[in-house]
């Protein structure tokens, strides 16, 4: 992308800031390490050998490019804009997470690291990390909240099959936030040999931009695929957002296309007014957690509040710093969908298109269902179907009070 003064590609700046957000807020022990990650990452960004290796594994192992599918029945049913799904749920391991894991493990290999750690919420990032560790023969330790281990048992078993060691985190909210605390504690203790594969576009600089870059393959593919299928660019992009890596993956390549609108959907849990939600932008304010300055759910004393969502992947009280920036710039519109709306969208997608979506993109679909009918028939929406719902069937059955 051409660098110019008004381009979104100029961010982050050299200190890792997207406007007021981002930066590097970690203990001194991690600083030398993270500086090294930044150095090595900067060197591989423009290294054709690294990019070639990354592309090779994305194509032959992950199964990229993922299809761009015209959801004809939903389009017809909603009676508005033409709807396309970017089918990242068809990737190996069932979500967009593996794009980033592949990039980071190649980086870890280059840095000579011998041990991989990661945090996981829904388990998709854990499975993707365990997968690339098996592929490259590196030991893998996954930190996962006790509550998430319970509600995502299929992914826990998958990670074990892949040879990963699962460490249950029982403090705090027992979910993603606390898993990340524990992973950071592990990293600080094992600085010499360990690489931390962060799963979303958050954390200390350079993680937010590095994860975004590895995920940006999603939007790049959409650009060429939609030109082939429609011979024009989409009018609206929609994605769900927890930390925000799948949304940035889809949006990033289009940020400078001013006419393209973008909609990101946070998890409203039991509703924004209930206090039980995970909508950091709608219900939070700027603060510092997990290495970056960004919007966070916090109480009147600056203590981080527990998030709530039916979707373990969105159950996080923060958001990647670039989203905080895009929110304040008003480049992306941020809305939210409740547990109930996501469940309805989940059922609708299964029956109408034969796709069982993960509960995460079901939130995006819930927003899509509202907006598509208000758009004209010659407009195009691309929604990121960022994960498949096999892992969620027990949660959904439970929510629908069905015994399986």
């Amino acid at each position: 992308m051409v660098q110019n003064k008004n381009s979104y590609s100029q961010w982050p700046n050299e200190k890792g800031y997207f406007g007021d957000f981002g930066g590097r807020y970690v203990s001194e022990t991690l600083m030398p390490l993270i500086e090294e990650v930044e150095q090595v990452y900067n060197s591989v960004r423009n290294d054709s050998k690294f990019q070639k290796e990354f592309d090779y594994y994305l194509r032959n192992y992950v199964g990229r490019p993922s299809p761009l599918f015209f959801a004809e029945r939903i389009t017809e049913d909603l009676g508005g804009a033409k709807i396309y799904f970017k089918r990242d749920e068809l990737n190996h391991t069932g979500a967009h997470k593996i794009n980033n894991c592949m990039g980071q493990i190649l980086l870890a290999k280059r840095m000579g690291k011998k041990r991989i750690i990661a945090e996981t919420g829904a388990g998709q990032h854990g499975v993707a990390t365990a997968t690339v560790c098996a592929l490259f023969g590196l030991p893998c330790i996954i930190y996962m909240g006790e509550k998430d281990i319970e509600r995502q048992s299929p992914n826990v078993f998958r990670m074990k099959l892949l040879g990963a060691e699962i460490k249950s985190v029982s403090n705090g909210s027992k979910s993603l936030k606390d898993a990340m605390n524990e992973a950071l504690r592990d990293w600080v203790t094992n600085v010499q040999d360990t690489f931390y594969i962060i799963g979303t576009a958050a954390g200390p600089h350079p993680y937010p931009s590095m994860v975004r870059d590895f995920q940006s393959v999603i939007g790049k593919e959409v650009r060429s695929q939609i030109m082939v299928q429609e011979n024009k660019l989409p009018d609206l992009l929609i994605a769900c957002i927890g930390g925000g890596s799948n949304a940035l993956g889809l949006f990033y390549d289009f940020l400078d296309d001013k006419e393209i609108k973008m909609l990101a959907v946070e998890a409203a849990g039991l509703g924004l007014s209930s206090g039980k939600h995970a909508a950091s932008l709608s219900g939070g304010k700027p603060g510092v957690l997990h290495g970056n300055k960004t919007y966070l759910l916090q109480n009147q004393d600056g203590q981080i509040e527990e998030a709530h969502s039916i979707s373990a992947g969105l159950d996080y009280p923060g958001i990647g710093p670039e989203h905080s920036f895009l929110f304040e710039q008003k480049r992306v519109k941020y809305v939210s969908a409740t547990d109930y709306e996501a469940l309805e969208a989940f059922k609708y997608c299964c029956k109408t298109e034969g796709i069982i979506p993960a509960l995460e993109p079901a939130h995006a679909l819930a927003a899509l269902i509202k907006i598509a009918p208000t758009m004209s028939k010659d407009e195009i929406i691309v929604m990121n179907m960022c994960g498949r719902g096999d892992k969620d069937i027990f949660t959904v059955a439970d929510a629908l009070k069905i015994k399986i």
Partner: protein
Amino acid sequence: MSSRIKEVFKNSSKKLVTFVTGGDPDYKTSKEILDKIIEKGASIIEIGMPFSDPMADGPTIQLASKRAIDNDTNLETIFKICNHIREKNLSIPIVLMGYYNVILHYGIKNFVDKINSIGVDGLIIVDLQPEEDQELYDNLKSKKIDLIRLITPNTTSKRLSTITNQASGFLYYVTITGITGQKSADIKELKKIIPNIRKYSQLPIIAGFGIKDKKDVSEICKTADGAVVGSSIVKIIENNLNNKKQMMNEIGFFIEELKKGTKE
């Protein structure tokens, strides 16, 4: 530099620095614990400002933070505790330790004005390094409050000059790569690194993390200018939550022992 910290380091005796979380297990007991620690001879006291996500702390201090927060400790509570100490003791340096979000949320200027008015001498922010601390540093400097910088075994020489550049008060050497209350202090490494740090700075160097008892304190004080003990004190609180008298007795005895360690 804070005059109280300067005063403490005027003589060359080795310093005992203690850490407890403010408001642990509750406001009233926390004040009594600090009174006891001061009575038994601590040279400098660190008071932890509890945070919901203490990423640099092991289970012991995590639990202390949780106990304090569950009992409604916030910054106002911490300020009241500092006030309580200052009413009785005008000379002991008070250093507040914690994570950045709590301060950021309170407002940097408000926070610094407040701690200045109640006689706090220094501040240690675990997740804030020189690259990000300019605004806080400037505010603190104008009030002569020290921003205590941390140095770890893996700090590079390039970072060492960045860190020592605007350091004041004393330097805090973290003896291990890890979290509080877990691994034991790496004395061999410390003996190697401290002379190197002294090439960059004239400031006193206090070592912390993994220093568990009198023997550790005595060993550390052969090289460093003093030692910080935290988790071992907090553990006494945790073990005696239902017996306050026992808690105070054990803390008193333990601090006396640690103090002896600085003199051996």
